[in-house]
């Protein structure tokens, strides 16, 4: 079935609501109005008692999701923008994600928190962030960030089925992307090689994946063969798949839409280095600068990774002395 990314999300939610009466959706403006990004349109009419419009209370939303998950529901909570997650963070970090370990396995917390994330929409510094790094160091939580409608559908269904808290991130610049949605099952935690290559491994996620693919095509004409890996799950990251690739290509570049210092790209680079130091000829990150996302279009475009900036970075690293360093 051809669907856009937004439609794939909607269908996954609809199918889960239909399949399991324990599934419940709640968030701000998601019901009657169908959501700030029109993702949940129609779901409340179809499942009136299980799609709820809530007050603007992010901490209560995540807290209620946590408690409900402990008592038999499978809540899918929408925190409208990923930028608002800090308001909900205590519940996710100190309650939901610790429960499985701390209770010594008495129960886990099967809840999903969905958010719109990412820059490029001219939404300015406080509606454009990608909140992965804030949660990357939180044991017990999974972070999923699909880049295609097919993955969005399959991984969101997997997230709702998962027994653990899952942060599910939807990049606002992907909502209109169209693609075939097969409905094929997928497991959280598996990265995919979305393009094979020999000279270099490009690792990324979310909106940067199409950028990497575009860059790989451009690099091809320059005689550089890039392997592109779509992480899909950011936490825990699928290091083995990357290591295998890097052992083949000997070069690693991680592309992250997010600040350089403390970003998840650092984790990937570190973990791969620990296993591949001896076989790597170069390893580096392309990220955004260490400042907030600017509003002005020209600033924002220059700030974000793009196919062009990826190509430029690759060319620089592969032409420079670093190749044989």
């Amino acid at each position, binding site marked *: 079935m051809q669907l856009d990314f937004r439609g794939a999300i909607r269908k996954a939610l609809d199918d889960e609501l239909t399949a399991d009466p324990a599934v419940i959706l709640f968030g701000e403006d998601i019901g009657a109005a169908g959501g700030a990004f029109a993702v949940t349109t129609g779901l409340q009419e179809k499942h009136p008692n299980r799609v709820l419009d809530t007050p603007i209370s992010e901490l209560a939303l995540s807290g209620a999701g946590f408690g409900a998950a402990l008592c038999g529901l499978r809540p899918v909570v929408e925190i409208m923008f990923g930028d608002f997650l800090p308001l909900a963070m205590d519940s996710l970090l100190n309650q939901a994600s610790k429960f499985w370990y701390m209770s010594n396995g008495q129960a886990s917390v099967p809840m999903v928190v969905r958010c719109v994330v990412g820059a490029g929409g001219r*939404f300015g510094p406080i509606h454009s962030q990608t909140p992965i790094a804030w949660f990357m160091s939180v044991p017990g939580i999974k972070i999923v960030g699909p880049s295609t409608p097919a993955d969005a559908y399959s991984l969101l269904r997997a997230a709702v089925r998962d027994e653990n808290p899952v942060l599910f991130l939807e990049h606002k610049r992907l909502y209109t992307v169209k693609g075939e949605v097969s409905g094929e099952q997928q497991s959280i935690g598996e990265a995919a090689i979305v393009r094979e290559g020999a000279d270099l491994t490009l690792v990324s996620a979310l909106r940067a994946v199409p950028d990497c693919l575009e860059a790989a095509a451009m690099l091809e004409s320059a005689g550089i063969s890039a392997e592109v890996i779509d992480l899909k799950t950011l936490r825990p990251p699928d290091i083995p798949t990357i290591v295998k690739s890097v052992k083949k290509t000997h070069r690693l570049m991680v592309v992250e839409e997010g600040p350089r210092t403390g970003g998840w790209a650092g984790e990937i680079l570190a973990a791969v280095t620990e296993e591949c130091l001896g076989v790597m000829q170069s390893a580096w990150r392309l990220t955004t600068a260490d400042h907030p996302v600017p509003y002005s279009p020209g600033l924002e475009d220059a700030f974000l990774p793009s196919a062009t900036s990826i190509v430029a970075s690759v060319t620089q690293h592969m032409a420079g002395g670093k190749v044989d360093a």
Partner: protein
Amino acid sequence: MRELVIDDVATDTMLDLYRQMFLIRIVEDACQDLYSKGLLHGTTHLCSGQEAVAVGANSVLGPHDRVACTYRGHGHSLALGMDLNAFIAELLGRQSGICGGRAGSMNLIDLEHRLLGCYGIVGGSVAAATGAGLAFRGTQRVAVAYFGDGAVNQAYFPECLNFSKVFGLPVVYVCENNLYGEFTPMDTVTAGTIMDRVRAYGVAASQVDGMDIRAVRTAMQGALESARNGDGPVFLEALTYRFAGHSKSDPGRYRAAGEFERWRERDPIRLAREALTSELGVAEDTIKQVETECAVRLAGAREAATEALFPDPGESVSEFKA
């Protein structure tokens, strides 16, 4: 709170308030237009319909007071004195914008004109003003927070209200109740009443007709005086309505039938205009002249902003102040 003194707004004051409200309204219309032309980006939250709160309340502030408001902050920014050129340039993402194009419509900041910021996080303005109030303990300065009905359910509000009451801070909390948070009617997501909630903290609270600029001024004068007297925080609920959608992409389907029309009858600009002509005897021509002046100013600012340079992406930026 002390008995309020009715403030007989003099004719030229009223004309000036009208000028400000009118300017804000046509600025908001221009924003809509700039958006549709692809010059204003992302999203923007217009305050059309709420001008009497922005202009009325800010018109009685002192020069050393400070204000924090929300992403729906165009009216407040202009009422506080933000330069119109710098304002529009910011919305268009230009270097000459009040924040150099970095912040955009939702996050305007203008410390020189008393604006601690428009806060993109619901509730953020409440905290900023509470902190300002802490800095103003024992002085004659007052901090003002503007926020919406939806913010009352958000963590910042109850925590900060308690905080400022406990320390007796000079803060005026002004809730602009426009009946909706985004597309959701306030009463479907809000238990009890806002007034009761605030009074439960022992904070003096009153309601005011947010469409009547003179009523807003009077109420705000009383609130400021009380806060300035060291009587601790004060709360004002301004009953108002936004004539535009929540943000640029909202057709407003959630409104009850006839509701919009009823509120339109109470358009604060129309009410002020009526007061000017029928009560204060100002000639229609004088008002027209004011309106024309506003339109001319706006056109000039719009042109200047449209021609202004974009910031240079190559400029080096530090995340820290040295």
